[in-house]
C-alpha cells in the first residue's frame, strides 16, 4: 500500500514540472498530425497491457491493449509520455516517427524502498519482521491536528481508539495488537531514536514515516518492546535550491454526535412514573389514581402542560441544555511552513507549525495552542565523517476550566430540563447542583504550558581502511517543562426563590475564596548510543551486522505552591495570596531512572532470496534488584523470496513479488513501579493532635525481592507479495503471543487478616494472544484516472491463562481466566418482564417488578444472585479494526477517501440505563422511547427507575461502527495560471473532512467510539486549506 502511494506521490510532484516543459514546448509551435503506433514491453520482452500513452501537455491519450499495442494520432513534434505503475515513466520525442516501441524499466525506487526498523532501516523486499509503515504525506491528509487520531485504521495491527475529542486531551489510546497483558499495554514510542511521549503533538508536515514493530522485531528494544514499538522518523533536508512550502488551513469543528436528551414534559412524565414505582405501586395504588392524587403525583398534569407550553419560563422551564451551553461549531487553524535545501556537504530543514483549536462550550475558557519548531542539519565534514543535529520544540498551551470535563458533561447532559439555564431576564441560574456550565468562565482556569525541547546530535564515521564498516553515535538530550496553573474563583449565580419571588444572589459550591495552584515539573532524558555497523556484499552474499551500546537516564521533579485568600483575582500570581500559614501549602517530589543496554543485529541474505536475521538486546534496567537487572531478549527471523526463484517465475509469471517469512523471539515489558524489591516508607498519613498535624510515615507495599519483567514470546508467520506488476498487492500475517511473568498481586489468595500493607506485584500472570492482519491493495490507471485502493484489517484476541483470582467455586463462569483481558461480568438479560404471568413464572430478585429486565437464572438454581453473573467474552477494546483508503487522481484533481471502523467490541453504558431515578438526572431519548409503562405493557425498554441486581447485558451494546474517517479533495492550480502570477512552482487548494459520516450498529445515541456519552464528544472537522511550494 505504501509503495504505491509513494509512486503516486512522486508522480504528483513531477507533474507540474512536466506541464511546465510542455508549456515551453507549446510556444515553439505545432507540427503536423501523424498516426503513431507501437508496442510497450517490459525488460523481459513481455507485452504490457494497460499502459498509458499520452501526448504530453494535452488530454490526448490512449491505453495499450492486451498485447501491449497502441495507436495514437499526434503532431509530428509531440512528446509522448508512457507511464505504468511500477515502472519508470518514459518521455519520447516523436520527431516524425510513425512507429515507436518502448521498453519500460521496472521502477527501482520501489525495489529500493526501505522501512525504518529499530536502530536502522531495511529494504522492504528483504524485510522479515512484521513491520508496517505509513508515510508522512498520508498523515497530512487528515485534518485532525492530533497524529494519534490520524493513524487510526492506517496501520494493520495498530488499534487506536479516540475516547474524547477535547482539544489537547484528544490523544487516541494506542495499542499494538490489542491488549497483551493485564498490566500496562502502552507501546513504546520512539521519535528519532529516543523514547519520547508527545507523538500526538508532532507537526504532521515534519514526519517522514511512522513504522510499527509488531512482532519479535521489537526485541531490539528489549525490556520496553513487549507491547510493540512505534518508530517515528522526521524529514531531512534535501540537496538543492531552497524549497519553501507553506500550508494553511482553517477548519470548523463540531461534535460528531450529541445525545438527544429528554425535554421537560417527557422528563416530568418519566419522573412521575419512577416516583410511582418507587413509592406507590407496591402499595397497590393504581397509576391513574396516583396521577389523580395531588399529594402523590410529583408533577401534576397541569404542571406538565405548563412545562410544555412555556407560559412560565421561570418556574416551568423547558431547558435545552445542549443548545444553551454548546456552540454550533468551533474553529481550528493550522499553519505550517517549511524550507529545505542544501549542498552536497550541508543539507538543512527548518520548519514551523502553528495550531490553534477552540473548545465547544459557549462559556468555557477552553483553548488549545501549539507551536512546533524544528531545525535539522546534516553536514559531511569529509568523505568519511558526517555529523548532524536535529533540534525541535513543541510549545503547547492548554487552557481549560478547572472543572473536569466529565463533570461538565454530566452537568450538561444529566441536568434536568426542568432546571433553568438562564432566566428570561438574563441572570444565570444554578443548574444542576449549582454547577451550571454557563458559569464556567467565572470559576477560574486550569492552564498547562507543556514545552518539551528535543535535541539529537549524531555522527557517522566510515572507517576508511575497512570497506563497509562504520560507526554511528548519537547523543540526545530532552528537556521538558510543564507548568500547570490552576486558579479557582468563587462564583455566584441567581436562584429564583418561589416564596419571595426574588432572584437571590448565591455563592456557588466551589471556591469561597480565590485559590491558586502553581506547579512546575521538569523532565529530562539523556540518551547516548553508539553502534558499529558492517555492511557488505560478497557476490551473491549480503551481510549486515551491527552491535551497539546505549545508556539512558531519566529524571523528573516537581514543585507545587498553593495559596488562597487572594486580595483580588486580578493578580493571579502566588505572591498575591494570603501569607497566613493556613492559607499556604507546597509540595514536591522527584524520581530518577536509568538503563544500560547492549544490542545487535545480524542480517544475511543470499541473492535477496534467502533471508536470515538475528537480533538481540541485553538490557539492564534499574527497576530490578541488583544481580537481576539484566535480561537477554533475542529474536530470530527468516524469509524466502519465492518470486526470485526461477521455477516460480516460470510457473506463475503474473507474480511480481512473493515472500514468506517467520519470526520468533522474546521481548520484555518493564513498565512497572520502581523499587518493588525494597520495603519503602513514604511521608503521609498525618494525624492531628491538639489542633495541628503530626507527621506520619506509611509503609509501601511489601517488597518482592524477585521482581522482574514481563516476557512476551512472539511468533509470526507472514506471506506478502504483489501480482500483475502491482495491480494487486497483499500481505497476510498470523501471530501468536504468550505473555508470562505478568506482574499481578496475590491479593486474591492472601487473606486481609494478615494485614499486609499492600501486596507486591509478583511475576505470576499469563496471557495468550493471537490474531492476524491482512492488507490488500490495488492500483491502476484508466485513461487519465490514477487510482488506488488499499484495505487492511487486524484481528486480535487475548486470553487470560492465569491470574491469581479469588476462587469462584459456585460460578466458574465468572472467572477471569479463559476470557480476554478486561472482560467484564454481567447478568444475562432476556428482554423485560412484560406481563405479570412472565414475572410470576421466572425467578427474580426482590424489587423486580413489571417492566424490569428479565435476568437469566444462569446457574439454574431457581433464584437470582451473584452466581448468575457471567464473564462476557468481548471488551471495549475492539478485536477487529479495519481501514480502507482510496485515492483518485484525475488531471488536476485528487480525491482521497478513508474509511475506518471496528467490530467485535462491546461497551456497557450504565449512564444510558438511567431513567426517572430519584436523583433528578435527565435521561436519553432513545432510552425513554418504547419504555415499559402501565399504558405500554408491550414496551421493549425497561421501565423508568428500573431495578436490576447489577450490570446486565441489556445495556451492553455492540460498538461496531464504520466511518468515513477522512476525505480530501484537492485541486492543483494548472501551471499556466501559476506562472501568470509569478509563482514558479505549485499551488494546491483542498477541502477535507474528518469523522464525516458514521454508521453505528447499536450504539446510536452517542459516538460509538466512546464508552459513555458523558464525555467530550469526538469532533467532526470540515477543513479548507492551501499548500504552496516555491
Amino acid at each position, binding site marked *: 500500500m505504501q509503495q504505491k502511494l509513494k509512486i503516486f506521490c512522486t508522480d504528483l510532484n513531477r507533474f507540474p514540472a512536466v506541464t511546465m516543459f510542455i508549456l515551453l514546448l507549446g510556444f515553439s509551435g505545432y507540427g503536423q498530425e501523424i498516426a503513431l503506433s507501437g508496442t510497450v514491453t517490459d525488460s523481459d520482452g513481455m507485452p504490457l497491457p494497460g499502459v498509458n500513452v499520452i501526448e504530453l501537455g494535452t488530454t490526448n491519450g490512449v491505453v495499450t491493449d492486451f498485447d501491449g499495442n497502441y495507436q495514437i494520432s499526434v503532431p509530428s513534434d509531440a512528446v509522448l509520455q508512457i507511464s505504468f505503475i511500477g515502472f519508470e515513466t518514459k518521455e519520447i520525442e516523436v520527431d516524425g516517427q510513425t512507429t515507436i516501441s518502448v521498453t519500460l524499466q521496472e521502477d527501482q525506487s520501489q525495489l529500493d524502498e526501505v522501512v525504518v526498523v529499530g536502530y536502522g532501516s531495511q529494504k522492504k523486499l528483504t524485510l522479515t519482521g512484521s513491520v508496517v509503515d505509513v508515510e508522512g504525506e498520508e498523515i497530512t491528509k487528515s485534518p485532525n491536528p492530533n497524529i494519534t487520531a490520524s493513524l487510526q485504521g492506517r496501520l494493520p495491527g495498530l488499534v487506536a481508539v479516540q475516547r474524547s475529542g477535547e482539544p489537547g486531551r484528544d490523544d487516541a489510546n494506542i495499542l499494538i495488537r490489542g491488549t497483551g497483558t493485564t498490566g500496562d499495554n502502552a507501546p513504546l514510542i520512539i521519535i528519532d531514536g529516543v523514547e519520547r511521549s508527545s507523538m500526538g503533538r508532532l507537526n504532521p508536515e515534519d514526519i517522514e514515516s511512522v513504522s510499527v514493530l509488531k512482532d519479535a522485531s521489537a526485541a531490539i528494544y528489549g525490556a520496553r518492546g513487549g507491547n510493540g514499538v512505534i518508530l517515528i522518523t522526521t524529514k531531512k533536508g534535501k540537496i538543492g535550491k531552497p524549497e519553501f512550502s507553506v500550508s494553511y488551513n482553517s477548519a470548523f469543528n463540531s461534535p460528531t454526535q450529541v445525545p438527544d436528551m429528554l425535554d421537560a414534559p417527557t422528563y416530568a412524565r418519566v419522573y412521575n412514573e419512577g416516583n410511582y414505582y418507587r413509592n406507590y405501586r407496591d402499595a397497590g395504588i393504581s397509576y391513574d389514581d396516583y396521577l389523580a392524587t395531588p399529594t402523590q403525583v410529583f408533577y401534576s398534569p397541569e404542571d406538565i402542560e405548563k412545562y410544555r407550553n412555556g407560559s412560565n419560563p421561570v418556574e416551568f422551564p423547558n431547558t435545552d441544555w445542549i443548545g444553551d451551553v454548546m456552540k454550533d461549531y468551533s474553529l481550528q487553524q493550522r499553519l505550517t511552513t517549511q524550507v529545505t535545501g542544501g549542498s552536497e556537504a550541508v543539507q538543512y530543514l527548518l520548519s514551523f507549525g502553528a495550531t490553534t483549536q477552540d473548545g465547544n462550550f459557549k462559556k468555557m475558557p477552553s483553548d488549545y495552542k501549539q507551536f512546533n519548531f524544528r531545525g535539522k542539519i546534516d553536514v559531511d565534514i569529509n568523505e568519511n565523517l558526517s555529523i548532524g543535529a536535529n533540534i525541535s520544540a513543541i510549545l503547547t498551551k492548554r487552557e481549560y476550566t478547572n472543572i473536569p470535563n466529565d463533570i461538565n458533561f454530566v452537568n450538561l447532559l444529566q441536568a434536568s430540563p426542568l432546571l433553568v439555564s438562564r432566566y428570561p431576564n438574563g441572570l444565570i441560574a444554578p443548574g444542576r447542583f449549582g454547577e451550571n456550565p454557563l458559569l464556567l468562565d467565572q470559576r477560574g482556569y486550569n492552564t498547562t504550558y507543556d514545552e518539551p525541547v528535543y535535541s539529537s546530535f549524531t555522527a557517522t564515521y566510515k572507517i576508511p581502511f575497512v570497506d563497509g564498516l562504520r560507526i554511528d553515535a548519537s*547523543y540526545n538530550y530532552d528537556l521538558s517543562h510543564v507548568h500547570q496553573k490552576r486558579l479557582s474563583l468563587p462564583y455566584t449565580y441567581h436562584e429564583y426563590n418561589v416564596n419571595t419571588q426574588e432572584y437571590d444572589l448565591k455563592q456557588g459550591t466551589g471556591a469561597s475564596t480565590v485559590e491558586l495552584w502553581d506547579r512546575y515539573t521538569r523532565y529530562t532524558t539523556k540518551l547516548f548510543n553508539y553502534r558499529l555497523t558492517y555492511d557488505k556484499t560478497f557476490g551473491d552474499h549480503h551481510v549486515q551486522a551491527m552491535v551497539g551500546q546505549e545508556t539512558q537516564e531519566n529524571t523528573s521533579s516537581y514543585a507545587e505552591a498553593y495559596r488562597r485568600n487572594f486580595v483580588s483575582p486580578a493578580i493571579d500570581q502566588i505572591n498575591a495570596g494570603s501569607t497566613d500559614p493556613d492559607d499556604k501549602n507546597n509540595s514536591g517530589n522527584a524520581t530518577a531512572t536509568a538503563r544500560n543496554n547492549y544490542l545487535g543485529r545480524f542480517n544475511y541474505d543470499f541473492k535477496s532470496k534467502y533471508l536470515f536475521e538475528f537480533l538481540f538486546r541485553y538490557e539492564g534496567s534499574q527497576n530490578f534488584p541488583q544481580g537481576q537487572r539484566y535480561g537477554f531478549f533475542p529474536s530470530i527471523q527468516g524469509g524466502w523470496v519465492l518470486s526470485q526463484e526461477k521455477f516460480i517465475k516460470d510457473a506463475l509469471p503474473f507474480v511480481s513479488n512473493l515472500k514468506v517469512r517467520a519470526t520468533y523471539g522474546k521481548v520484555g515489558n518493564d513498565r512497572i513501579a520502581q523499587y518493588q524489591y525494597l520495603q519503602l516508607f513514604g511521608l503521609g498519613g498525618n494525624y492531628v493532635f491538639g489542633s495541628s498535624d503530626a507527621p506520619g510515615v506509611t509503609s509501601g507495599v511489601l517488597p518482592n525481592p524477585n521482581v522482574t519483567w514481563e516476557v512476551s514470546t512472539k511468533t509470526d508467520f507472514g506471506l506478502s507479495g504483489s501480482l500483475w506488476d502491482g495491480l494487486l498487492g497483499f500481505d497476510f500475517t498470523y501471530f501468536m503471543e504468550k505473555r508470562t511473568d505478568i506482574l499481578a498481586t496475590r491479593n486474591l489468595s492472601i487473606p486481609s487478616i*494478615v494485614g499486609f500493607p499492600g501486596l507486591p506485584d509478583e511475576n505470576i500472570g499469563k496471557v495468550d494472544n493471537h490474531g492476524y492482519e491482512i492488507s490488500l491493495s490495488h492500483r491502476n490507471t484508466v485513461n487519465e484516472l490514477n487510482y488506488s485502493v488499499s484495505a487492511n484489517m487486524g484481528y486480535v484476541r487475548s486470553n487470560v491463562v492465569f491470574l491469581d483470582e479469588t476462587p469462584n467455586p459456585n460460578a466458574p463462569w465468572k472467572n477471569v481466566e479463559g476470557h480476554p483481558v478486561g472482560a467484564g461480568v454481567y447478568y444475562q438479560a432476556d428482554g423485560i418482564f412484560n406481563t405479570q404471568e412472565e414475572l410470576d413464572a421466572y425467578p427474580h430478585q426482590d424489587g423486580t417488578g413489571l417492566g424490569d429486565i428479565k435476568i437469566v437464572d444462569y446457574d439454574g438454581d431457581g433464584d437470582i444472585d451473584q452466581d448468575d453473573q457471567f464473564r462476557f467474552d468481548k471488551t471495549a477494546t475492539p478485536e477487529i479494526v479495519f481501514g480502507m483508503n482510496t485515492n483518485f487522481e484525475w488531471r488536476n484533481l485528487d480525491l482521497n477517501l478513508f474509511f475506518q471502523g471496528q467490530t467485535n467490541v462491546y461497551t456497557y453504558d450504565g449512564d444510558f440505563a438511567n431513567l426517572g431515578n430519584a436523583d433528578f438526572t435527565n435521561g436519553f431519548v432513545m432510552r425513554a422511547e418504547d419504555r415499559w409503562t402501565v399504558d405500554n405493557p408491550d414496551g421493549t425498554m425497561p421501565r423508568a427507575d428500573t431495578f436490576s441486581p447489577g450490570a446486565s447485558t441489556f445495556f451492553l451494546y455492540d460498538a461496531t461502527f464504520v466511518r468515513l474517517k477522512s476525505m480530501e479533495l484537492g485541486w492543483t492550480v494548472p501551471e499556466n495560471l501559476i506562472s501568470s502570477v509569478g509563482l514558479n512552482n505549485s499551488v494546491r487548494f483542498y477541502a477535507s473532512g474528518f469523522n464525516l459520516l458514521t454508521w453505528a450498529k447499536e450504539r446510536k445515541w452517542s459516538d460509538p467510539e466512546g464508552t459513555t456519552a458523558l464525555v467530550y464528544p469526538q469532533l467532526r472537522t470540515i477543513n479548507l486549506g492551501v499548500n504552496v511550494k516555491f
Partner: protein
Amino acid sequence: MKKIILLITLICASYSCSDDILEITPIDQISEASVWSDVKLTTAYHTEMYNVLQHGFKIHMQSKATDEAFNSINWDIGLIPRGDLNANNVGSVANNHWTGGGNVYFWNTGFSYLRKINLFLEKMEITELEFENKDQLIGEAKFLRAFIYFEFIKRFGGVPIIDQTYNLGDEFSFTRNTFEECVAFIESNLNDAIMVLPDKYASTDSNFGRATADAAKALKSRTFLYAASPLWNESNDEAKWQKAADAAEDLLDSGYSLHPDYETLFNQPSGSANNELIFTRQFSTTNFHQAPMHNLGRRYGAYGGWWSSNGPSQNLVDDYDMINGEPPFIYSGSGANISKTVNPESGYDPQDPYANRDPRLDATVIHDESEYHGDTFEMWVSPDGSTYGFDTYKQSSDNPRSNYQMRKFMPDANTPISWQENYTNPWIFFRLGEIYLNYAEAKFELGDEATARLYVSKVRNRVGMPDLPDTVTGEDLRKRIYNERRIELAFEEHRYWDVRRWEIAEDIENRPIYGMDIIKDGDDKTYNPVLLLERTFLPKMSLLPIETNELNRNNNSISQTPGWE
C-alpha cells in the same frame, strides 16, 4: 579530523559500559532501616497508627444504617435497612470504601493496622533506640490494639487474636477466638496502657487526641457494658454488669464535667475548651472534614447526606420527650406492626409537633420553621403540590425527603458554610455524658434504680430537662435509659450497636421509617407523617458477616458469623 575523533572517543569513554548508572537509590521515599533507626521517623510511624481510629464524618454516616435517618439509597449503606446486606456485598459498607460506608465493615482496615501496631511493638522489643517517651508510645499502641479489638467484637463477635506479624511466604492459619477471650485481650492491653499513660490532657492541649489512661478506662467501660449486654450475656451474669459499673465509676470523679451547652459540645473547632471530652479524633485546617456540606441541604449547596440519604427520621424526632419530661407517644406492638398513640400527659400536639420539646431536638434536627444560621427553614408543600418551601425535597434533590436535616455537629452562626471551609470540630469517641449513661445502665441492671435515675437525670438536667421521677421503675426505667442514650448520643455511632446488644433490633429495626409531610394551605399547616421505608431485620443481622472472599482466602479456617453461612 583528528580532533573530532578524539572528541568522539572522549565522549564514548565517559559513557563507557559502566553498571553504575543503574545504582539509583530511591530519592523520594524512605527505606525501612531508617524508619527504625531514627527517633523522629519511628515516632512518625507511630503517629500514623492513629489513623485506625475512624471518625464518623464520612460521606455515609452510620446513622443511615439505623432508625436515626431516612436512607434514600438502596446500595452501599442502604443495603442494611433494606435487609439486603450479605457476605458478598458487605465490603461495600466498609470504612475504606469511598463513601466511608458508615464505618460498618472494619475488617480490612482493622487487621492492616493491627499488623502495623504489632510490628511497632515487636520493633520496640529489639530496638536500640533510647528515647524519653518510648513507654508512652508503647502504651498508646496497646490502647490502639484494644480499640481495634473492641471494634471487631461488636461487629463480628470473637475474632482471631493476632499479636505478632506475618510476612509474605509465612505459613498461617487462623481460627476465631471466643468473644470472652477477645474481651480479656482488650482488658489486658488496656491495663498495660493505663499503667504507662498520663491520665489526661486538657482539650486545649496540643497533645489532646492522644491515648490517655482515661481514654483506656472509657474504652473499658464501653467494652464491659457491651459484654454484659443481653447479646453477650445470655445468663445475665451480674458479675459482668458489676464490671461494667466499676469501669464507668472509675471515671466519674476524674475531673470531667458535662459541657454546659449541648450545641457547642459538638460544633466548636478542635482545640476549644470542653471539659466533657475524654477522647476524640481531632481535626486541623489541613486535615479537616466536610460534615456540614455532606449533611445540610440545598440552601447551603450541601448534599443532604449525599443523595439526600441522611435526613433525620420522624422516628427519631418522635422520641424526644416533651419539656415536661414526658415522652410524647405511647407505643404498642413491635416491628412492622408498631402503633403509637399520643401520651395524654405529655401535652404533645400533633399539629404543632415541634413545640415544647426536649431542647436537644432543636440542637440535633433542623425542621420546618427552624431558625438556623440566620435562615428560617421552609419544608411545606401546597395542597396541589405546585408550590413548596425552599427546603423541601420538591425544590431540590439535595433536600432530604424526610423534611428534616441534621443540626448536630453543624457550624454555629459564626462559621461559614461552604465547600471551601475546613471544618475541625472533633469526632467524639468518649465523653462524660456517655460514661454517665453507661453507669446508669449498669447500675440499673444491678438493681440500683436510684443511681440509674440519678445519672440519667444528670444528663437531662444539662439541657434543662427535669429529673426522671422516682415513679419510673423497672421495665419503664430500662426504656427511659435506652431512650436517653438514643437522644443524648444521636448520630454519634451508638444507635446501631446499642439496639443490637440490647437485642431490641428485631423490634426497632423492623419499624418503618417515616418522614413528615407539611401541607400549607394559606397560613394553615397540617402535619402528616409519611411512610418512607419499610425495613427488614433478621436475627443474624445482630452481627456482621465476613466477606465470602476473605473466608475463601483463609481456606475457610475462619468460620462465618452465625446465620450468615
